[in-house]
């Protein structure tokens, strides 16, 4: 998987957060803009771009961008 592209795809989901704030180690739940809607958008993006369907538990257990990438990589 192209990691830079994943980070870009993820950062694109945010309306008010600067892309530079989103890195592999970013704890996205700590971001001001984070909401349950963004969680759903993340699941949706991963489904559309990577054809991987996260379970609710997998989404809840991920805390950093790296965590998300790991889940996607394990699934593929």
């Amino acid at each position, binding site marked *: 998987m192209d990691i830079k592209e994943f980070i870009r795809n993820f950062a694109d989901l945010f309306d008010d957060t600067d892309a530079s704030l989103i890195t592999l180690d970013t704890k996205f739940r700590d971001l001001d803009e984070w909401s*349950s*809607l963004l*969680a*759903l958008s993340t*699941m*949706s993006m991963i*489904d559309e771009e990577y054809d991987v*369907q*996260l*379970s*609710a538990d997998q*989404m*809840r257990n991920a805390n950093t961008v790296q965590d998300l990438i790991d889940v996607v990589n394990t699934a593929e």
Partner: protein
Amino acid sequence: MAFLSIPNVKIVGVAAAVPKEKKIVSELECFADQAEAERTIAQTGIVESRLAPEGMVCSDYCYEAAKQLIEKLGWEKESIEALIYLSVSRDYIEPNTATVIQGRLDLPKSCYTIDVPMACSGYCIGLSVIGSLMSLGCMKRALMLVGDTPSKIMSPLDKTLWPIHGDAGTATALEYDPEAKPMLFNVMSDGKQKDAIIAYASGVRKQVTEEDLKMVKEDEGIIRNNTHVKMDGMGVFSFTMSQVPKCIKAMMENFGIEAEKTDYLLLHQANKYIDEKIRKKLKFTEEQTPYCLEEFGNTSSGTIPMTMVTRIANQLRKGHHSMVMSGFGAGLSMAAVYLETDSIEVLPLIEI
């Protein structure tokens, strides 16, 4: 895989009844502010729905829809051999609401009555039940009453559920016909996710105590008690995105149904964003996929017949049409159906 092919049964008429009173999403008290209300409208596509007043419940709307449909079809009461009531909004846990309605409609004692308490997968599951009962020719005419009054089982202070649901009751009339094209199904269950949509203290598993009736603030904008339905939004979202398109696709592939050769895709409507994702995955066009949730909200098992009555009634009254339907929800339960109709009776929406 639960692939079913049920011959000899066809839909001949559909009617729907809704409350007159409207519930306008942007005006609801459960939201923290107007911005929150706007976000919900944008995300779900739901602008308003109908709200049953005190004393009116799902069976009342189904009863009215059935009464008017029987009259329009010119059916003698004595000829109605089965009535199934498909809803989680039953008058009582005991006795069956179907039987209560048989009494109200004064149908013969020989009428076969059962409840099938399914939620959002209900219309499709209901067709598999009534279809199976009629297919052998032992019953020539039947009614399937489908709907829900979520307003009676959800908390008005729950911003995740109250704004998006609406009340409705519908009636579908079916006949035995050896010439009818078979109804084709794929029905699936996932009980391991029973907690995704559940009202804990609503049956015998958890007897209702005073504690269960206390309204508890679970989170900002979510105040409800243990008898109210609650939903794990993320769990349902994941399920809907992954399992539902697969269920529908499997049905279509198994029976050789092609999206471009099908007139309509009628999906259960809880959230337009999700439905659009399903539609695109299945390669149906916007023109093939009517919605009515913006005006009536998520009426649980009622969304499919409500769409037939309020969005494509004129089309269904004239000529031959094919459709793929899919309902999915509490259980978790999901079903996909393919069926064809020919100049069916569709009553104008009843508002009472």
